[in-house]
């Protein structure tokens, strides 16, 4: 029995070796790889979309269509948005990984050495579609090259419960931070606080804290891009105000929230307002029976959107910019570029854009005229999100240093530390020290 087994194993090994050697010899003789290795595969890494229908559309319709029309295979992979940067770093250092990686905001500057110039594609799409928004251009291009192809901007607006605001006398959304604080105080007293994260999370935290800082007149760095000017009277005032606003009107448990927590809290009616993309509203549209108000009506009829209130220095917005980086290590650069070009043709991009129902605003002006913006007035404020955004790093450029400051959550932590009890002066000084370490190098 043992002999029989040994003989069998030897036979198997022998045939495997024969196949391997003749196969290799065959490849070497013809100079051609076998057919299965010839199919080019483009690996596209993106976030898990907050509009699940869009990911489903990508998987079931757009990717199969692209595979058919371009003769390539597409590996469409989605991960939590917070995991995109670690994946990009690991891929670049190991020299292998996804061909296309989605980048948020000005992260592209961090990976500038490791990406392929996409100027030609970006400019041609911009030219065809009424011009790229300045906001998207500044985040994806350093003026010399497009480090990534602008994809879309996820507009950040405050989603709020209209009836609850009405109940405390706010029939129109507060225009200034002071008004907002007064309303928030009344709402919190009724057990319906504002839900705002100050955690280390890519979207809802910095898109709140940066515009908030700017609205008070504070900024990280001067226009020269070198002089750190965070330690100013304006920043100090903003931190002081935040301490009161947090205590008076916010859900204090939100300090460690990620980008999904506020969605859950809003949908379970524990908060009355939160800065978010339109995903909360879209989810209530998708499941009107599941999400009902305390009075029994569909929640989607009770949600409105408003921009962040104005401060002494004006009203600002920073929205999550998404773009795709074509990686230098990719062995399929031509295929990946062809795929990106295909994805950005109007007919294909439109399918995805419509599936977003306004959650994402395209990076070019032409889409402002799309009929989708007239279908639902609740979504109308998102139409111009990309047009009005201001990039991190203001008053300097959104360059690598600004990206480092953003990815270290320094501005967000300054406020988080202050609401946790650190004196406002100390929190500002801490942020100044951290920013100087970045900008003075």
């Amino acid at each position, binding site marked *: 029995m043992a002999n029989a087994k040994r003989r069998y194993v030897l036979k198997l090994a022998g045939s495997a070796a024969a196949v391997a050697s003749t196969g290799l010899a065959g490849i070497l003789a013809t100079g051609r790889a076998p057919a299965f290795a010839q199919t080019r595969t483009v690996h596209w890494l993106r976030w898990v979309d907050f509009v699940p229908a869009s990911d489903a559309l990508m998987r079931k319709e757009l990717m199969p269509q692209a595979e058919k029309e371009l003769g390539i295979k597409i590996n469409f992979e989605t991960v939590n948005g917070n995991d995109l940067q670690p994946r990009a770093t690991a891929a670049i250092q190991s020299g292998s990984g996804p061909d296309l990686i989605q980048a948020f905001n000005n992260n592209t500057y961090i990976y500038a050495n490791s990406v392929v110039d996409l100027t030609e594609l970006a400019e041609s799409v911009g030219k065809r579609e009424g011009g790229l928004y300045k906001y998207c251009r500044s985040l994806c291009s350093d003026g010399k090259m497009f480090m990534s192809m602008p994809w879309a901007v996820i507009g950040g607006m405050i989603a709020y419960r209209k009836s609850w605001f009405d109940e405390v006398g706010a029939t129109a959304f507060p225009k200034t931070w002071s008004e907002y604080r007064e309303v928030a105080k009344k709402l919190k007293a009724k057990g319906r606080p504002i839900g705002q994260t100050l955690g280390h999370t890519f979207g809802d935290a910095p898109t709140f804290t940066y515009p908030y800082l700017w609205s008070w007149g504070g900024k990280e760095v001067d226009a020269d891009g070198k002089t750190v000017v965070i330690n100013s009277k304006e920043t100090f005032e903003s931190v002081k105000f935040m301490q009161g606003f947090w205590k008076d009107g916010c859900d204090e448990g939100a300090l*460690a929230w990620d980008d999904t927590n506020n969605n859950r809290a809003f949908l379970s009616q524990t908060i009355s307002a939160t800065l978010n993309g339109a995903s909360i509203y879209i989810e209530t549209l998708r499941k009107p029976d599941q999400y009902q108000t305390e009075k029994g009506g569909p929640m989607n009829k009770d949600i409105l959107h408003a921009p962040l209130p104005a401060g002494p220095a004006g009203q600002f917005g920073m929205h999550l910019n998404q773009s795709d980086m074509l990686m230098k290590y990719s062995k399929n650069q031509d295929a990946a570029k062809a795929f990106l070009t295909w994805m950005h043709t109007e007919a294909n991009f439109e399918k995805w854009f419509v599936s977003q129902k306004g959650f994402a605003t395209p990076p070019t002006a032409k889409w402002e005229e799309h009929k989708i913006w007239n279908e639902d007035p609740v979504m109308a404020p998102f139409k111009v999100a990309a047009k009005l955004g201001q990039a991190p790093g203001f008053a300097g450029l959104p360059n690598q240093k600004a990206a480092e400051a953003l990815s270290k959550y320094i501005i967000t932590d300054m406020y988080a530390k202050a609401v946790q009890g650190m004196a406002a002066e100390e929190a500002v000084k801490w942020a100044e020290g951290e920013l100087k370490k970045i900008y003075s190098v």
Partner: protein
Amino acid sequence: MAVTALGAGTARRPVVRLRKMEDERWLALALLAPTAILLGLFIAYPFAEGVMLSLSSARVGDPGKFVGLKNFFKLADDNIFWTSVWNTFWYTGVTTVFKLALGLWLAMLLNRHFRGKAIVRAFVLLPFIIPTVLSTFAWKWMFDPTFSVINWTLFKVGLISARINWLGDADLAMASIMVVNIWRGVPFFAISLLAGLQTISPELNEAAAIDGARPWNRFWYVTWPLLLPVTMVVMLFSVIQTFADFQLVYVMTGGGPANATHLFATYAYQIGIVSGLLSEGAAVSLAMFPFLFVIVVVQLLYIRRVETR
């Protein structure tokens, strides 16, 4: 004839290669080689690479240049780093004490005879067996600021009137991750110490009992000294693992709120992998080494003292 032929074959002088192996030095070298290669490849090489990285200005996609100890000087001036150092010691210290106390208590209980002993022993191991990321996600939900089942229970029982901000408050967040670490680590202590307890002859305890020793005295003067060598080894493993813990903190708090729960490993990850500052991340990671080295050496010396006593 056949036998003669075979005999002639075996009597042939061994080839030179094999003869070399008769020399103990060569044999030892050959036997050690696989281990040495493995250690060199997977421990020494990455370590040396890490050291080189920490002495450079490398960023993601940029190999950088040699900058000497600049990254370490930068760390010395970084208060988030010092928070991480303090947190790592505090986290390791507190959890090790609790894991030892609870693990020992559990091991003593499991060392007794009762019905269903085998099943209970198997169940005790569950927290240790479940992948850390999975169980930690479950804990994360239990500590969720809005939906915490712990808060819900305490509220229903009437012990609290407002929500406890488990992961949003710096101290509570640290306490929360410690609870999860203890929950996960107790089975390792319990089962290892149980194995140690079973090597102690029951006759020693019986003799002490006959001499009139009370249970506490029997534990303190008989069981504990005999269990000490095993305990020290278990503690050594646990300290090393806890000191370099990553996944639990990463999943629960990501080092937040506002960097309040960063440990060495999570801060190194934040700096090196997320922000792409590879050299600075490597420096944070390596800064753990001297601390851990001192702890391990002290523990090993103590173990040697205990064993030779």
